[in-house]
Every structure is written in structure tokens, then in C-alpha cells.
């Protein structure tokens, strides 16, 4: 389960992270929720490894193969002998393979990005629409009621305007 403290300033939000860490929370369970990207470390350090570039590279390889197979494979399957020209024309095959490679790399990047972000998100998550207007959220995952109580205290003592949860309203 998740709690989200909403703050009016960067300093308060950063202080809330410090207090949560002092209260024994692992940094990996804390994240910021903002409407603009802040440089790493302003609130939290994200340490998850990214495999996005590998998905892009995989997409590119797949695309290059598919493009080559389409252009060269068609020529091999339905050969048209014209003078002394080769059955598989290298330059056009290269162009088709290149375009397919780029297309699949672009698609791979987008798919990889959504997978890594965990979007689309169907589960209800703690959120406050005022974050879009510049408020800053500090979200923390808790396991039991004691942890929840500690987290609420830490967030309020740092100056949280309000606290939201991912629980459905009663």
C-alpha cells in the first residue's frame, strides 16, 4: 500500500524524504511524484537498472532482419532475371532493411518505455491532481499499520498539506 504526502515546496518535500529515511524507510520504497522532472537526487535517487536501450537494439535487429527478408526473400521466391542483373538488388534491399530497422527501433523504444514505466496503469494509485499545478508529492510504500503511522507522522512533520492513499474511498 502507498501513502502520498503533498507539499508546497521543494525544501519541504526533500525534508520529508530525509525524515522517512531517518524513520527507517529504505530509499527504494520512497519516490517523488511531480509534474516536472527534477534532477536526480533533489528528492530521491532512482537506482533501477534500465534495459530500454537493449529493447531498442533488439527492435532494430528484428526490423533489419524483417526488411532484408521481405526485399531479398521476395526476389528469391519470385526471381525475375533481367539481363545480367543480380536477382537480389543490394541497394534497394539495403534501403528497405534500413527503413524497417528504424521503424522497429522506434516502436521498440516506445514499447520498452511503457514496459519500464509500468504503463498503462490500471491499478488505483495514490495521487493528487494539484500536483499538476506545481505541488510535490512524496510517495512511500508501507507494509502494516505501524509503518503507516510512522510515515504519516514523518510526512506531516515535514509540512505535508495533506496525505493521500491508494485505497478506494469508503
Amino acid at each position, binding site marked *: 500500500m502507498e501513502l502520498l504526502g503533498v507539499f508546497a515546496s521543494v525544501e519541504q518535500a526533500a525534508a520529508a524524504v530525509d525524515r522517512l529515511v531517518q524513520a527507517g524507510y529504505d530509499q527504494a520504497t520512497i519516490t517523488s511524484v511531480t509534474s516536472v522532472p527534477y534532477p536526480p537526487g*533533489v528528492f530521491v535517487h532512482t537506482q533501477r537498472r534500465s534495459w530500454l536501450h537493449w529493447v531498442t537494439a533488439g527492435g532494430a535487429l528484428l526490423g533489419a532482419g524483417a526488411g532484408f527478408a521481405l526485399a531479398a526473400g521476395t526476389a528469391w521466391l519470385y526471381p525475375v532475371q533481367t539481363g545480367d542483373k543480380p536477382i537480389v538488388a543490394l541497394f534497394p534491399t539495403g534501403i528497405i532493411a534500413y527503413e524497417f530497422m528504424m521503424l522497429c527501433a522506434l516502436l521498440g*523504444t516506445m514499447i520498452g518505455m511503457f514496459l519500464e514505466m509500468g504503463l498503462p496503469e490500471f491499478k488505483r494509485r495514490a495521487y493528487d491532481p494539484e500536483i499538476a499545478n506545481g505541488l510535490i508529492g512524496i510517495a512511500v510504500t508501507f507494509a502494516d499499520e505501524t509503518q503507516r503511522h510512522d510515515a504519516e507522522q514523518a510526512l506531516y512533520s515535514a509540512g505535508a498539506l495533506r496525505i493521500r492513499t491508494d485505497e478506494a474511498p469508503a
Partner: protein
Amino acid sequence: MSMPADQHYDAATANAAMLSSTRPATWRWYLLALLLGAVVACGLYAFSYQVMTGMVVTGKNRPVMWGFYITNFVFWVGLSHSGTMVSAILRLSQANWRRPILRGAEAMTVFSIMIGGLFPLIHLGRNWTFYYMIPYPSQYGLWPNFRSPLLWDMMAITTYIIGSSLFLYLGLLPDLAVARDRAGGWRRLFLSVLAMGWRGTAQQWQTFGRASTLMACLIIPVAVSVHSIVAWDFAVTLVPGWHSTIFPPYFVIGAITSGVAAVITLMIIIRKAFHLEAFLQPLHFDNLAKLLLVVTMLWSYFYFAEVFTTWYGHQPIEWEVFRFMSDKYRLLLLIMLFGNTVVPISCLLWRRVRRSIPALLVITLLINVAMFIERFLIIVPSLSHKNMPFMWGSYTPSLVESTVMAAAFSGFALLYMLFAKFFPIVAITDVREETEALRGTAVRGRARLTTLVDEE
């Protein structure tokens, strides 16, 4: 890096100002949409008339088989170039002034490539057989000819349409969430679906940054390949005036020139229409105009390098094409040279001109008129005077072709208007990132200086 306590209110005001285009439409908006829609309807009627009657209703003839439609195709593909490409280059080079212009430029790319991609289909003749270009196993055993540059076009344009749409959507994602949180009713539902549950966690922003950089790296070579392939439509033939190795880079530079000019024109219109003077400042126009100055100089260098080589070699048929062009289309040639070279280079050297919105509007519109003429002068004179003198001819566009062309311009404007009505036309989070997250103050000696964090 400290943020004032009332930042919340500043950000809310900035959001409201940048979302001004999405406010309920006025009667003027409806009137303009109606007018543009009427021109599009006329174009659709003209096209249906062409389908029913045949290509005889166009000005195309032997030997000029490519006319206004292919001129439009090259023009619109060129126009599409700068949006995404310039946005990607500025993103990679971390030019902070890019922020307010990103969205408008990226949307321009998507709509102009969509319009451009329609022209080869309109030009086909038997338009209903367009799907023969798609490689699929049919019962006729009919496969597209991969050796044809027209098929390369189809592949490249499809890649570019998908790529630039994804690039536009990627940049929009966090802004869709901002717009979602401020919207109500059906609009909120619509934006929620598109925002896919984006919250803006540190992890999401990190992945978003990585994906933006990767997409920017990928889209630049795609954009270059698209216009190079369009240039090969001409250069791989043995038509005099076309068979030139300089064509691909020359086309790419021409495309960037017309694209940057169109971005400036659109920014001026958006600034005025949606009261975005606070975000689109003279500095942004100054920087874009400097970029335009450089590319017009490059274009002029490429053009004169090509003409000089033709003149020096003086091959009879090559020179005949140039002589015919400078004789029959003298006025168009002069407008092209003035619009693409003399006027921009002599005017944009001056800071005062670069910061003058009315002057920039005139110059950028002139550049695109000149660029359209340049496309026309590449296509028509070369086809009119090919190698066989007994087949020399001429070309005049018909009313049907002109109506379809007018519909293309109106359709582009209509699509852009609709986009601005439903989506943020300024990249909200990009603009706010600079003021809220990256900009700060530091005391150095006796001065309080503005600092900017490096994007990484």
C-alpha cells in the same frame, strides 16, 4: 534551486496560460474551421471528379507526367522535415530555448507528412489500386518492385509518419496528464485514456528522459533518409537536370530550410492566436532565425554548386533544360532566387530583423513560396525537355490540380487547429522544467546570479 512558497500558484497560472488554446471555441474559430472545411470539401469534390473522369482533367501530358501533385508531394515532405528533426537536434544539444517551440514544430511534422503522403496516391491515376504497393501475398502472385524508388518512398514515408507521431506522443505524455488533471467531463476521460495513468514518479521521469534521448537519436537519421529517398526518385533516373549526386543532400537542406521557415510562421500565428507572448519571446525567434540564416546559406551554396557545374560542363541537353527554365519560367526563377537566397541572407543578418515578428512573417512566407517554386522548377522543366527533342512539351496546372492543392493547405491548417483545440500546443512540462526544476540563483562575490542545472 529554492522554490518560492507560492510556486503552486505560479505553476497553475503557467498551466492555464499554456493551455489557452484548449479553451472553449469562439465563433471565430468555428467560422475559420467552416471556411477551411469548405475548401477541403471542394478539394474532395475535385478529386472525385478526377477519379470519375480520368487523369485527362489534370494538366499532365506527354512528356510531363509529373506536375503539381508531385511538386506538392516534395514540398509537403520537405515541410515535414524540420519539425521533428529540429526538435530532436535541439533536444540532443540541450538548447534551452527549444522548449516553447517543440510541440508546435512536432505537430507540424506529423500533419505535413500526412498531407504529403496523400499526393502520390492522388497522382496514381487508378487510385483504387493503391494497395498494390503494400507487399502482401495476393492470389495474382503480384509483388511490388523493390527496385522502384516509389516503393522506397512508401516505406520511408510510412516509417516517418509512424516515427514522428510516436515522437509527438512521447513529448505529449506528461502534458496529457497535466491537461487531464485540469479537465472535466468527456475531455477528462479522453485525456485519461491517452495519459495511460501517468503520475510523474521519479522512475517514470528517468525512463521518459532516456526514451526521449533515444527517440531523438533515431528520428534524425529517419528524417534524413526520407528526403534522401525523395531525392533519389529524381536522381536515379537519367532525366537531364535530375541525374545528380548532389540531389540527396541538396533536398535535405532544402527541406530543412522550408521546415524551419514554416516553424517560424506557425509560431508567429500560434503566439498571436493564443496570446502566448510570455512564452514565445523575441529570443526564440532570434535563435530560430539564426538557424534559418545558416540553412539558407547552405541551400544557396548547394544550388549554385549544382548550377555552376551544369554551366561549366555545358552538356547540350543539360544546358537546354536550364535555358528553357530560365526563359519560360524567368519570373518564377527570379522569385525563387530572391525568396530563398537574396532576401533571407541579406535580411536575417540583422538582429533587428530577426527580432521583428512582422518582418519574420513576411520572410518565412516568402521562403516557402520560393521553395514551392523550386520544387516546381526541378520537376517540370526537366520533364518538358528530355533527351528526345521531338517529344518536348510544356505543362500548365489545371483547375482540378489547383483545387486539390488548395484543399491540402486548408486541410493542414484545419488539422493543426483541431490539434491545438484538444491538446496542449506548448510543451508545458518542458517549459516549466526550466523555470521550476533547473533554474536557481547563486551568490558569487557581490552578485546574485541566475544558474541553470545541466540536463543529463
